[in-house]
C-alpha cells in the first residue's frame, strides 16, 4: 500500500539536515525505489551553498551507509542524482524565499512532509517561535499560494497537549485561548527588548565586573571581548528563560512543545482545502533496526540521562516511578510518517496521529533505571583511573527537592572555587581549581538535566494511538514487515540493553573526542598545536623566521619581581636592618596581591616605585649576583632545554617580560638570546621608580610582539609562545603554537577551553631557598661593610 501509493510521487521533505528528516529520506530512497523524486528543502548557510550541504550534512551521514554498501558507491551516486534534488527554502522568509523555478518545483510536489523544527527544549524563545511556529505557517501559506493541493504531513510532537493527565486523544491540542499570530509576533520580537536590556548600565557593569575577574590581567581588548561574550550569553539565557517561563505559564513543559502546539493551531487554521495530516511522535530515540540498529544523531533527551546515570553523575532523579516514559525508535516514526503520507485524508478535515509507545507497549519510568542498573552492572563505565563506577540507586524525590540539593552543592563548590582563585597560590592552585571546576560542571550538568527533563518523568498521561493503529491495520502484512511501526513489536529490555544504551555509549565517546578538538570562534580564534610541541619544533627546524617567545617569571624561572627585589635589597643592607625592611614589605603585601589580581601592569607600576632612589650601578651588580643566587637555582630545567631546542632549530628566541633589566639581562646574556624587559628612568645615576615605557603586560605585550616580529621579519603564525599567566593571553593568541606553562587557575581554564598545550615545568627538587642571602657568608659581610 505504501510503496504503491508513493510510486512516481514527488515528495518535499523539510528539515532533512535533521535526524528525522534524514531518516525519512533514507528510508524512502531504500524501500520505495519507484518514488518519483524527493525534494530536500535545504537553506544555503553562510558558509556553504545548499547543494554542498546536501552532500556534507545529509548524504555523508552514517544513515546512508547501508544503502551505499548495498548498491556500491557509484550506483548510490547515480540513484541520488536521479531521485534527490535540492529545493532552496528559507523558512524565515515570507514565501519561503523561493525563486520562480522553486515555486514551480513546489507546485509539482504531491506530498509535503514538514519536519523542520528547532527541537532543543532550551532554545531561545524567538528562535523557537520563528522556526517552529512562523516557519510552519509560512509553509502552509506558500503551499496554498501554488494553487495545488499536495498532501501536507506536518510533524509535530505528542507533547503539544501540555502537561495534562490521563488519555491524550488524537485531536486538536489544548487551547489556552491564545491567538497564535499574537504569540508569534510577541515571541519573535523578544530579542530586541532583551538586547536593549542587556545594554543597561547595571547589567553591563555586572558583566564587566565578571569579565574582569575572569580575564582582567589579559588587558582591555581581551576584557572587552569577554564582556561581549558574556552579554551575548546573557541575552540568550534571558530569551531561553522568557521562553520557558512563558511556556510553563501557558501549561506547557517547554518552549518547544508550546511553539509546536501553536504551530498546529496555525496549520489547522491556514490549510484551507489542502489535505492535512499531523503526525505527533513522542520522544524519538535511536532506531531499532533500520537503517542499522542504533542509528542516532545528536544527543537529545534520554541520552544525557543514561550517560549521567552510568557515570554516576545523577545519583538520584525525580519523577513518578509508575508513570510512562514514552520513547519511540526513529525507524518506527519514519514508517508511520510514510504510512500516513500514503493515506491522505479524503476531505479537508485534518487528521491527527500519535506515534507513541505508551498505549501499546508502555515503558514504566521505574524500568528505566532498573534496566540501566542491570546493564551497567554487567558492563560498568570506568573512571579516569580505570575503576568501575557503580550504578546509582534512584529514590525518586520530588523535582524541587532534588534541584534544591543540587543547588546547595553547587553554591558550595562555587564558593570554594572563588576562594581558590583568589588565594595567592599561583600555579599550585590550578590542579585544585581544575578539580573544583570539573565538580562544578558536573553539578551544573545534573541541575540542567533536572530542569530540562525532570518534567517529562512526571508526565502522567498516555497517548492514544487508535488513529495510527487503524492505518497499521490497513497495511498488508508484507508491508507490516517492511514498514513496521507498531510499538508492541519489540521489548524494552531488548531495545534498551542491546540497542539504545550501547549506542549512547558509543556516541558519547565520539562526542567527547569531538569536543576536545573544538575551536573557539570569533576574534579569539587560534589554531591548536596538533601534536606535541617538540614535533612542531622539528617541523619548523632551520627556519630563521620562526620566533619562540618566552615569558620569564613563572615560565622559565620560579620567581617574581618581589623576590628579586627582596634579595637585592637584603644583600645590600646589614643584618640588623633586615627586620625593619621586612616588616615594611609585609605591610604592603596585601595591596600588591590585590593589584596583581586586577592587572599585572598596575602591580608592576606600583611595585617598581620601591626602586626610587636606588643606585643604578649597584643594582646592576646585585642583579648579576642574583643570577647565581636566585635565578639559576630556580630555573626550570625543561624550560632551559626548550630554549636550546629552539636555538638548535635555528629559531629566533626572545625573552619578553615585565621584570626589570637589572635582573633579566644577566640571564639573557647567559642564554645568548634577546630580551625585552622593563627599564626604569634614571636620574643622576639613580633609579626613579618610573618606567620608561608602559609595562609589557596584556595587550601591550601582544603589540610589542607584533612590532618586534615585523622589525625582524618573523612570522608569528608559525611561531611559539610560552607563558604562565593570564596577562600573557593576548600574546599567546598571536602565535600558532601557544604553550601554557604552569598556568594559574584562570589561565588553566582558558587553555583547557581552547585546547592549548599545557606543560608543567618544575624546579629541580631540593633547590628552594628563601630569597635572602646567607648572612653567615664572609662575602656578604664584607660587601655590606663596603
Amino acid at each position, binding site marked *: 500500500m505504501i510503496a504503491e501509493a508513493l510510486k512516481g510521487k514527488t515528495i518535499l521533505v523539510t528539515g532533512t539536515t535533521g535526524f528525522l528528516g534524514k531518516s525519512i529520506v533514507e528510508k524512502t530512497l531504500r524501500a520505495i525505489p519507484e518514488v518519483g523524486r524527493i525534494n530536500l528543502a535545504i537553506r544555503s548557510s553562510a558558509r556553504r551553498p545548499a547543494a554542498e550541504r546536501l552532500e556534507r550534512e545529509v548524504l555523508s551521514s552514517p544513515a546512508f551507509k547501508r544503502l551505499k554498501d548495498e548498491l556500491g558507491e557509484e550506483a548510490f551516486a547515480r540513484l541520488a542524482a536521479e531521485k534527490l534534488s535540492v529545493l532552496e527554502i528559507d523558512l524565515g522568509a515570507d514565501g519561503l524565499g523561493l525563486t520562480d523555478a522553486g515555486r514551480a518545483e513546489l507546485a509539482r510536489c504531491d506530498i509535503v512532509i514538514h519536519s523542520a523544527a528547532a527541537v532543543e527544549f532550551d532554545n531561545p524563545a524567538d528562535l523557537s517561535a520563528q522556526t517552529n511556529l512562523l516557519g510552519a505557517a509560512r509553509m502552509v501559506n506558500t503551499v496554498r499560494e501554488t494553487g495545488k493541493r499536495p498532501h501536507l504531513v506536518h510533524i509535530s510532537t505528542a507533547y503539544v497537549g501540555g502537561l495534562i493527565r490521563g488519555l491524550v486523544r488524537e485531536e486538536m491540542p489544548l487551547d489556552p485561548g491564545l491567538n497564535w499570530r499574537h504569540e508569534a509576533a510577541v515571541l519573535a520580537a523578544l530579542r530586541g527588548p532583551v538586547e536593549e536590556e542587556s545594554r543597561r548600565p547595571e547589567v553591563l557593569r555586572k558583566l564587566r565586573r565578571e569579565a574582569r575577574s575572569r580575564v582582567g590581567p589579559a588587558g582591555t581588548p581581551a576584557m572587552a571581548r569577554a564582556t561581549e561574550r558574556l552579554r551575548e550569553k546573557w541575552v540568550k539565557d534571558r530569551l531561553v528563560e522568557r521562553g520557558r517561563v512563558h511556556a510553563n505559564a501557558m501549561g506547557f513543559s517547554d518552549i518547544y512543545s508550546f511553539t509546536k502546539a501553536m504551530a498546529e493551531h496555525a496549520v489547522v487554521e491556514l490549510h484551507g482545502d489542502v489535505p492535512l495530516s499531523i503526525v505527533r511522535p513522542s520522544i524519538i530515540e535511536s532506531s531499532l533496526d533500520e537503517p542499522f540498529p542504533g542509528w542516532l544523531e545528536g544527543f537529545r533527551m534520554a541520552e544525557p540521562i543514561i550517560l549521567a546515570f552510568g557515570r554516576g553523575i545523577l545519583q538520584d532523579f525525580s519523577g513518578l516511578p509508575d508513570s510512562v516514559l514514552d520513547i519511540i525508535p526513529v525507524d518506527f516514526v519514519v514508517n508511520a510518517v510514510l504510512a500516513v503520507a500514503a493515506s491522505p485524508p479524503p476531505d479537508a478535515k485534518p487528521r491527527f496521529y500519535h506515534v507513541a509507545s505508551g498505549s501499546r507497549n508502555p515503558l514504566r519510568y521505574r524500568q528505566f533505571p532498573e534496566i540501566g542498573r542491570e546493564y551497567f552492572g554487567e558492563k560498568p563505565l570506568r573512571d579516569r583511573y580505570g575503576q568501575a563506577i557503580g550504578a546509582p540507586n534512584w529514590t525518586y524525590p520530588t523535582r524541587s527537592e532534588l534541584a534544591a540539593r543540587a543547588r546547595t552543592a553547587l553554591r558550595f563548590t562555587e564558593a570554594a572555587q572563588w576562594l581558590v582563585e583568589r588565594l595567592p597560590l599561583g600555579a599550585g592552585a590550578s590542579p585544585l581549581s581544575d578539580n573544583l571546576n570539573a565538580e562544578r560542571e558536573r553539578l551544573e550538568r545534573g541541575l540542567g538535566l533536572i530542569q530540562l527533563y525532570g518534567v517529562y518523568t512526571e508526565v502522567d498521561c498516555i497517548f492514544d494511538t487508535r488513529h495510527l493503529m487503524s492505518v497499521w491495520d490497513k497495511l498488508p502484512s508484507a508491508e507490516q514487515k517492511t514498514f513496521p511501526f507498531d510499538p508492541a513489536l519489540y521489548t524494552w529490555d531488548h531495545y534498551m540493553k542491546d540497542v539504545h544504551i550501547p549506542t549512547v555509549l558509543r556516541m558519547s565517546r565520539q562526542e567527547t573526542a569531538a569536543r576536545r578538538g573544538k575551536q573557539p570562534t570569533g576574534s579569539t580564534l587560534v589554531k591548536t598545536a596538533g601534536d606535541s610541541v617538540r614535533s612542531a619544533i622539528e617541523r619548523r627546524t632551520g627556519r630563521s623566521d620562526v620566533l619562540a617567545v618566552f615569558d620569564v617569571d613563572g615560565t622559565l624561572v620560579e620567581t617574581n619581581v618581589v623576590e628579586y627585589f627582596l634579595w637585592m635589597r637584603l644583600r645590600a643592607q646589614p643584618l640588623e636592618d633586615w627586620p625593619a625592611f621586612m616588616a615594611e614589605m609585609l605591610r604592603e603585601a596585601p595591596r600588591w596581591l590585590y593589584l596583581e589580581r586586577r592587572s599585572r601592569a598596575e602591580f608592576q607600576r606600583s611595585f617598581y616605585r620601591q626602586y626610587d632612589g636606588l643606585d643604578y650601578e649597584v643594582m646592576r651588580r646585585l642583579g648579576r649576583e642574583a643570577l647565581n643566587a636566585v635565578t639559576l637555582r630556580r*630555573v626550570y630545567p625543561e624550560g632551559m632545554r626548550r*630554549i636550546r631546542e629552539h636555538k638548535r632549530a635555528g629559531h629566533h628566541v626572545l625573552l619578553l617580560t615585565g621584570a626589570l633589566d637589572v635582573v633579566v639581562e644577566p640571564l639573557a646574556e*647567559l*642564554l645568548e638570546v634577546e630580551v625585552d624587559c622593563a627599564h626604569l628612568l634614571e636620574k643622576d645615576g639613580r633609579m626613579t621608580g618610573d618606567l620608561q615605557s608602559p609595562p609589557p603586560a596584556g595587550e601591550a605585550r601582544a603589540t610589542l610582539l607584533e612590532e618586534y616580529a615585523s622589525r625582524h621579519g618573523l612570522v608569528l603564525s608559525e611561531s611559539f609562545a610560552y607563558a604562565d599567566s593570564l596577562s600573557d593571553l593576548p600574546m599567546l593568541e598571536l602565535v600558532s603554537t601557544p604553550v601554557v606553562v604552569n598556568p594559574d587557575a584562570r589561565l588553566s581554564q582558558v587553555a583547557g577551553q581552547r585546547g592549548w598545550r599545557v606543560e608543567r615545568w618544575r624546579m629541580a627538587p631540593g633547590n628552594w631557598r628563601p630569597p635572602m642571602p646567607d648572612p653567615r657568608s664572609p*662575602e656578604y659581610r664584607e660587601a655590606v661593610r663596603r
Partner: protein
Amino acid sequence: MARPGAVIEVDRNTPPTLFHYGEGVRLERLPLGSRIVYPPDPLEPIAHPERAIKRALGKPLDDDPLKSLLRRGMKLTLAFDDLSLPLPPMAAPDVRQLVMEEVIDMAAEAGVEDIHLIAALGLHRRMTQDEVRHIVGDRIFSTFWPDRLYQHDGEDPDENVYIGKTAQGEEVTLNKRAAESDLVIYVNLTLVPMDGGHKSMATGLATYRGIRAHHNVKTLLGSRSYMNPPDSALHHSCIRQGQLIEDTVRVFHIETTVNNHAFPSIASFMQKRETDWTPQDQAMFLAMKQMTDIAPPAFKRGVFHAMRAPYGLTSVNAGQVDAVHDKTLDAVRNQISVPVEGQTDIVTMGVPYLGPYNINAPMNPVLVVCMAAGYLFNLYRGKPVLREGGVLIFEHPCRYEFDAVQHPSYIDFYDEVLADTTDPFEIEKKYEQRFAEDPWFIQLYRKSNAYHGVHPFYAHYWAAFAMQYAGDIIVVGGEREVVHRLGFKAATTLEDALEMAEQTVGRHPSITHLRVPPIMLCDVQ
C-alpha cells in the same frame, strides 16, 4: 703507632655494623661469617706543619731549592687543587693555605712581583668566593682576589694554549698563563692514590680537548683500578701528557698528604669501629639517627655539609714530579692500605653524603653511581674485593634531587640520557659531544658555578668498569624509580638485597662489607 686496618669476621658478639646512608646512617646486622674491612686509624700528624713545609721547600727531591728558582722580574704562577679535595673539606687552615703562604713569602723575599694564583679545577665547577677564601685563607684572598687569584677556565678560547700531541696521539692543552710562566708551582693535596703527580697539571689546567684523551670509557675500562697508578691506563695517559707539559714549562711540584681523620669529634663514631664506641659515641649515633630519620633533607644537608674534617698533615714533599709523587703515594698507602685476603661473592657498603663533586650540594643520582660503583668500588690494589660476576650492594636514599646551580648538566643527563640508555659506550657515542659543546653549559661553567656539560658523562664512565664487572648492583633504601633509571635493582632492606643477590651468586655467598669512609685501599691478595 696507629692501629692498622683490619678484616674482622662477624660472629655472635659482633655489634651491628654502621652503614652510611646519604645524609643519614643505618645499623645493619650482617650474616654470621661475613667479613668487615675497617680502615686504619689516623696516623699521627706532623707536629709542626710550617716547619715541615719549609724543610721540603728547602730540600726538594731531584730539584734545586725553591729559593734558587725565584728571581726578580719572573712570571710566577701558583696552581692549586680545588675544593673537590679533601673530603670533607679541611678545617681551617687548609694545608694548601699553609704551603702557599710559605711560597708567597719566599717569592716576595726574592722580589717576585708577577704572581698569579690559579685554582686548577679542570672541568669542575668554579668555586664561590667563600670557598676560594676557605682554601687560600684570608690573607692571600684579600691580597690577590680577584685579578691575581682566580680560577682556571677551560672554555676560554684566549686563555688556553694547545701544546701538542704525545707519542700516543693524546692532545695536550694548558692554561695560557701557566704555559707562559717562568715557573709554575703546583700545590697539591693527595687523599687517594688517584690524585696528584702528572695528573695535577694534565687535567687541572687543561681543556676538554686535552682531558677527553683519557677521560673516556675505553681508558677507564683499562684502568684496574685508577686508584693504583701502575695499573691505570688513565694515569699512563696523564703521565705522557704531563711529560709534554714539563718539557714546555718549568713546574715545581709540592704535594701534601693528610691522615684519614675525616670526621670531627661530634661524629667520631663514624671514625671508629663499632666495638670501640664509647657511651658518648652511642648517644651521638642515636641522636644523629633520630635527627636524620625525621629531619627534612635540606636541614640534614645543612648539618652534614657544615662538618669540617680535622685532618692532620702526614707528609709534604717538593721538587721534581716523579720523585715527589712516589713519596706521596707511599705516604697515602701507608695511611689507607688494608690487606684483604681473597675475593668475595658480595660486597656491601654504605654511600656517604659527600663525594668529590657535591660539596655544598645534594649527591644526585648520577653522582651516587660515580661514588659507589666508581670511587668506592675502585679502592683496591691488585684485584677488586668483589669477584667477577659478584653482586655489589650499597645503601643510599637515591633521591631525585639535583643542585640546579652546580649540576645543571646532570639534570639533563639524568632526564634525557639515562632515560635512553645506561651503557657507557652508547652514551659516549651518542650524547657526549652534544653536551660537551652545548653553549648553555659552557656559559654556566664559565660564568656560574656549574660543572662542565661533559662532567656527568665522566661521573658515569667512572663506574663503567664496576657496571661491566659486577653481576648485579643492588641499592638498598633507594627511591625505586631512580634506582631503575640508573640501571640497578632496588631493595628495601639489606636482608632482601642479600636474598636477591643469591639469585646471581648462589646460596651461602661470601660477603665482605667495606666500612668506608674513612677512606681505605684494599690490598687484595
